[in-house]
């Protein structure tokens, strides 16, 4: 009655965020152990999160770093 892949999809974000209860975790892992498709999709989600972080990581401009340091309050 319940589609296990649909349930697994619902569990994916909390699973990867490590916020599932032990029971939910066991259930998700049991399904992942036997379902190649869900396993692939979980791995994709993990890769995607890492990839997004890298893609949007921007170095702070050196000029801004200097401006921030200049905001320090001088000692009397």
């Amino acid at each position: 009655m319940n589609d296990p892949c649909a349930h697994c999809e619902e569990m994916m974000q909390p699973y990867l965020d490590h916020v599932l209860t032990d029971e939910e975790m066991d259930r998700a892992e049991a399904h992942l152990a036997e379902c190649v498709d869900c396993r692939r999709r979980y791995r994709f989600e993990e890769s995607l999160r890492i990839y997004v972080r890298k893609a949007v990581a921007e170095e702070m401009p050196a000029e801004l770093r200097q401006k921030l340091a200049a905001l320090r309050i001088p000692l009397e």
Partner: protein
Amino acid sequence: MEAEPEEAQRLATEARDRVRFEEDALALSDQVYRVARYLASSREDADELMQETYARAFRSWRSFTPGTNMRAWLMRILNNLNIDRGRRQQRAPQMQPLEANDYYLYDRLAEDGDGVSDEDKVVERLSQDDIVTALSAVPHDFRDVIVLVDLGDFSYADAAQILDIPVGTVMSRLHRGRRILKRELAESALEEAT
């Protein structure tokens, strides 16, 4: 007369604490910037916001409790300033963004790539521009949470405190925000493919 050395001692201790605070805060600036860049609406806004945040932090350093999370403390100042400045309006409810299910993006990319099975390769079909554009297209309320948790590594509880919303709201916005992001990514990736 006797109070003088004590007063001098107190001032010296305070000066030392303040210098240490400023150094610690500056050492976190790269991490703060990474988040500020996407809480603000442009690079220029992020630049100004960082300066306002640090100016305020240096002035009100006494209100920071040593031993607590300084990065979250700085981020809270930054978020409040961002709201005060109206850069990020507490806007009227906007159109409900479309969100896809969690598997949608993978399924679309995989089917479009002749059944590529290596998940890393599937991810690499997205360009950096696709990702930056897609993240910018996610409405602020959802994006703020993604930026704090997924890019800034803040816990749900820290994000809740920074944004002044309940933890449950952080979780639901994060969940939906990631789905909206994936829908945006699927759209841009598929547009390129056609």
